[in-house]
């Protein structure tokens, strides 16, 4: 929630964002759901800390102490998916910079408004910079993979009588490497939700699935919000022929039933990855923010403060992006929150129908695989995960909507 860099000369209540925040805070359920989401995000970020078959600490006899777990975080042969690498980079950044950043953010609140915005923008940029740096370092790092299968190695060494110090995460299983001998195990202490056909721990995959689902939701929505906002802004601001063309485009896209279109397009892409899926979802869903933004623009275009901005000679793009756009933030934010939920649902529906990316542990994928078995846990666990995430998002979205819509305020 950054403030726009340039303050409009005759803007509406400048603490509008705070106002919404206060209104939102009054809704206990929505606030709880937001904390739930935050927890989910942390779960996704810290997934490797919860579950990995690489020991956090490892020492053979009196040899040097090492952390195969730490090395594995940026091993592109182990975490081969870009999503996982991104989250691992986040894990490092959040762990190292999270607390100082939060402290700095809070401290910024004591500053005067203008300085606060700038400070927070700088903080945000710094955070993104740190993330990119981590990712870059990771790309530059050698991609050798520790070949050892640690639990097996430990057993082997101990059988030889060599003392081994090994500290594993609470769930010492990999989300990826299955152990054929343990395939399709019923729930037990070692595997609280059992294992799947390849002998992979279901709970571990569920946790890593949160990364996939959140990524799909957030990225697809950011993508289509960007497209939609730009197109909607253009249509609403310029009107006339531009509006006509964009309107037609919107009309064309909304007339084709979206799930049908998504399924058809997905089926005709041969090597589907989750990035394809995100793009497809975005390509179909951008009309919602476009319409919202366009409507807001039409409403604001003739309002006094825009006329005032124009009268004192602000360039056109400044008017669009610094003055009208912040006003459209509210409805777009609401639709984005619901959008994330529906993107997650769409992805799991696609996976369920066999049109997803089968290489990633997405929840829909797991549910579809679980359907062939008679194990209730394999159906209920991913189903419940989807349900909880979507519920949380919907509740937060609902809270935002109530907070933004004064009509529903009590």
């Amino acid at each position: 929630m950054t403030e726009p860099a340039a303050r409009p000369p005759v803007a509406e209540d400048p603490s509008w964002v705070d106002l919404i925040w206060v209104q939102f805070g009054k809704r206990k359920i929505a606030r709880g759901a937001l904390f739930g989401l935050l927890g989910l995000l942390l779960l996704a970020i810290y997934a490797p800390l919860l579950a990995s078959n690489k020991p956090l600490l490892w020492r053979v006899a009196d040899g040097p102490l090492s952390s195969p777990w730490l090395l594995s975080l940026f091993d592109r042969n182990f975490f081969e998916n870009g999503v996982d690498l991104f989250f691992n980079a986040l894990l490092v950044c959040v762990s190292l910079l999270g607390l100082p950043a939060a402290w700095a953010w809070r401290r910024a609140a004591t500053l005067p408004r203008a300085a606060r915005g700038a400070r927070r923008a700088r903080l945000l940029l710094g955070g993104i910079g740190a993330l990119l740096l981590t990712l870059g370092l990771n790309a530059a790092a050698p991609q050798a993979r520790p070949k050892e299968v640690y639990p097996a190695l430990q057993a082997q060494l101990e059988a030889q009588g060599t003392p081994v110090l090994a500290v594993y995460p609470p769930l010492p299983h990999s989300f990826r490497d299955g152990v054929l001998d343990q395939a399709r195990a019923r729930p037990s202490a070692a595997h609280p939700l059992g294992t799947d056909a390849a002998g992979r721990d279901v709970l571990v995959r569920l946790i890593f699935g949160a990364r996939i689902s959140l990524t799909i939701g957030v990225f697809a929505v950011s993508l289509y919000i960007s497209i939609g906002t730009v197109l909607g802004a253009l249509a609403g601001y310029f009107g006339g022929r531009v509006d006509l063309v964009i309107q037609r485009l919107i009309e064309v896209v909304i007339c084709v039933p979206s799930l049908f279109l998504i399924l058809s397009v997905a089926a005709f892409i041969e090597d589907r990855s989750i990035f394809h899926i995100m793009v497809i979802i975005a390509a179909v869903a951008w009309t919602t923010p476009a319409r919202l933004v366009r409507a807001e623009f039409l409403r604001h275009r003739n309002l006094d403060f825009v006329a005032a901005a124009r009268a004192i000679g602000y360039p056109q793009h400044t008017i669009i992006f610094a003055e009208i756009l912040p006003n459209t933030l509210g409805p777009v934010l609401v639709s984005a929150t619901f959008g994330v939920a529906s993107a997650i649902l769409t992805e799991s529906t696609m996976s369920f129908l066999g049109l997803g990316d089968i290489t990633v542990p997405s929840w829909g994928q797991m549910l579809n695989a679980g359907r062939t078995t008679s194990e209730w846990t394999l159906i209920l666990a991913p189903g419940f995960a989807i349900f909880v995430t979507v519920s949380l998002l919907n509740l937060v979205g609902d809270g935002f909507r109530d907070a933004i819509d004064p009509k529903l305020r009590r």
Partner: protein
Amino acid sequence: MRQSGQSTLLFISLGLLTTINVINSWQIDHLERLAIEDSARLAAIEAQLRAGVPVSGAATTTAAGPAARSAQEAEALADPKNLLRAPTRPRVRAAQVSPGRTLRMQIGQDPQGLNPLIAKGADVNEYSTYFNAFMATRDIGEPERWVPDLAVKVTTDDDLRYRIELRKGVHWHRPAVDWASGRYDWAKGPGPDDRQPFTAHDVVFTLDAIRNTQTAGRVSDLRTYFEPVVAYRAVDDHTLEIQFKEKAYTNRSALFEMPIIPRFLFSVDEDGKPFDAATWGLKLNEHWYNQKAIGTGPLQFVSWEPGVKMEFARDPHYFGEPVAYDRLLMSVVKDQNAWPRKLKAGELDFIYLQPEQFKTEILDDKDGVLLDNPAIKRADFSLFNYFYVGWNADRPKFADKRVRKAMTLSFNRAGVLEKVLYNQGALTSGPFPQQTPCYDKSVQPLPFDLEAAKALLTEAGWTDTDGDGVRDKVIDGQRVPFTFTLITFGSSSEYETIASTWREDLLQIGVQMQPLPLEWSAMLKKMDERDFDAFTGAWVTTWEADLMQLWHSAEADKPKSGNRIGFRNAEADRIAEALRLEFDEAKRVELCHAFHRLVAEEQPYTFFYQRERTVLYWEHLNALEFLQIPPHRDVRLFSFNQPASP
């Protein structure tokens, strides 16, 4: 109170209407019920009448077993020059016939159509054995023996010119059209139920259709066999002559197993007007009757609603042994997960089990009671196929047979078969079905041996020189690491499991493999363009071995050919060519065994396994029996152990 007056009136009239409606519906329901009862009674009377009247051509089946079915057939079988021989056993035991029963089975998807000449697919081939008869069929007991079907006698002197004597008194099924409309009166024939007779002219018409380049679909596969035909003609209504250009072992099976379509129906449009000679091939592709079935087989077509069901009924005029029940209902159930549920609910009589279900229903079944119902039984049969991993021999990495062998050694086939595929099949070491004599049982599948694999790779020059854990080698002056991409069939999750398991093992020997799941069409494109390192695949095979398409080096250079891996081996070429011309069974087996040993040594494929199928069925069916040869499932073999419907 105008308003209340109006509404009162409205309510009264509404009430009246409702009452009238209820009474009406009740009356209609009653009438319908009467009508249904009447028609059932009529059908019963009809069946009784028919039972008393012998039908021409079809001597009522007796318990004579393998005995000849007609005088004509008996005479023909007596001729020692006849290529066809008496069957070793009948398909149906007459005592089992249960009138009034419907056999209910599931099919996973609709066939492309029901014209066996146009529609492609293993399913159509199977269904056509229900409604169609062929020139000759393979014997159930001894598949190398041809037994009479539509033909009773086939003779040849040189394996080039065949003379065929057709069975007399056979009629086509009555087309399933709206006869009452009068539009189809042209299709009526002189036979019983206005049927049209089957003659040699139908065979000639079929051959014309196959050789007409305008036709497309399954015919294009058949055309390959019939292109080298010099001439064919109908000598008379029941005699046929055909001359091939080249002698080939495949000529016989092509001729005998060719689907035959009736001329009276397929040479004309829906109003009975003959097609133009210039374009009739194109018309056949979209013929109005392609979505219905017609034939001379034991079951006649009743209806097909795509996505819902397909129905067949016993043909009362069938010339051979009639099937043991009245109707065959195939309901389309696309979701495989629903199959066991539907069986359990009694909506189906038998189902195929998928590997996952096999695990769930059979391996995990503690009490040994299938689907928790003691009345459900199990049967298994082995399919004519083999799964393999193909190596692109044109890629430097896999040009070396030691490398290919190392790949096979590092693939824990037995483990995967057990854990992922639940032992629903058997490991295989060569390209022949294990039930056929061609399969050389002395050739054992390679073991899972990572140490041996490491040794072979080192021997082939692949060593880890830079210590990054991945072997490398200098090829064309460049140091390349041993990494490769395995294209897997993306629509099935078991491949994903198999690939991820294998990848872990390959890492142990310093090879990095990246699985790439692709849709079938994308996979096909990559294979056609030879743009792959390795891929997973499966071939469905036939009883007789033909090695030309997959293994001959001439095919290796053709784009879009079956020899996608670029296998070029002079010895293999020699064997494949010799096998085409060899008619002696013992010598054929020898050639096959030689070839089997050759590929086991060369490892162009990593041979994986031959799949088995498990079937669950209700015990009101007699123990299920399956054919050794494709399509394996033959509903003519199934029968109920209760005489009539409950």
